[in-house]
């Protein structure tokens, strides 16, 4: 899973049946350079162009921070109720599992070594 910022939305009418009712958000993942740059020991490739399209059922909007999960967990996240024995079947690979209220990251002052 990763934490990212919602920067946009993708709209589509012609799509595989299992995707109806899902909203698709463009999420820009947070990088160490955004959260705790003092921990980086060397410059890393520019991340401004990193992005993922994630399905959303929680109603996140642009500007909000979200947690996105991949794979099986993403498919479980967009199925609220399923009868016993039935496995998730929406054809997605990423989904929003939480809308972030706030987060805390260690500051440079805490990192004394």
């Amino acid at each position, binding site marked *: 899973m990763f934490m990212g910022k919602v920067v946009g939305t*993708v709209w589509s009418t012609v799509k595989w049946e299992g995707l109806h009712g899902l909203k698709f958000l463009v999420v820009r993942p947070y990088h160490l350079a955004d959260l705790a740059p003092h921990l980086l020991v060397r410059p890393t490739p520019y991340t401004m162009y990193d992005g993922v399209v994630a399905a959303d059922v929680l109603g996140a909007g642009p500007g909000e921070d979200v947690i996105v999960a991949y794979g099986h967990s993403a498919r479980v996240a967009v199925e609220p109720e399923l009868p016993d024995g039935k496995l998730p079947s929406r054809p997605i690979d990423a989904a929003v599992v939480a809308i972030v209220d706030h987060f805390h990251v260690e500051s440079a002052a805490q990192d004394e070594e």
Partner: protein
Amino acid sequence: MILGRMVGTVWATRKNPRLENFKLAIVRPYFWYNPSHDVEHVIAVDQVGAEVGQDVLVCVGQPGRWVAGDSRCPIEASVMAIVDSVEIERGTENAPVAPFALRSRFLPTTLVRVGDGGSTARDAGLHETDGGTP
């Protein structure tokens, strides 16, 4: 999912028999995150009848095999949707934290900028900054 543009089709006669009757689309991602290898193009099974030049969504992993109807199909990516519009918030390039930008030389054909009347990037004559090292 990956947002990209369909840029071509792959024709192959010699292939795994389980790929018979599947159209293979060449999709160039507009953006991606931590790909396991350097990627300029993704080959994906087209399940929605996309055409060259259209913006599409590609799903990676198992769902491609469900959609093909055969879990033994050697498919790991599928075109799942044809995109009508991509809305990106204006001002994300210059955001104080986590700036986001699209590559100026390869913008989605269906891009719409919002937060400022919603005009398209082309109509407004917008020029994207091309990034660089921080």
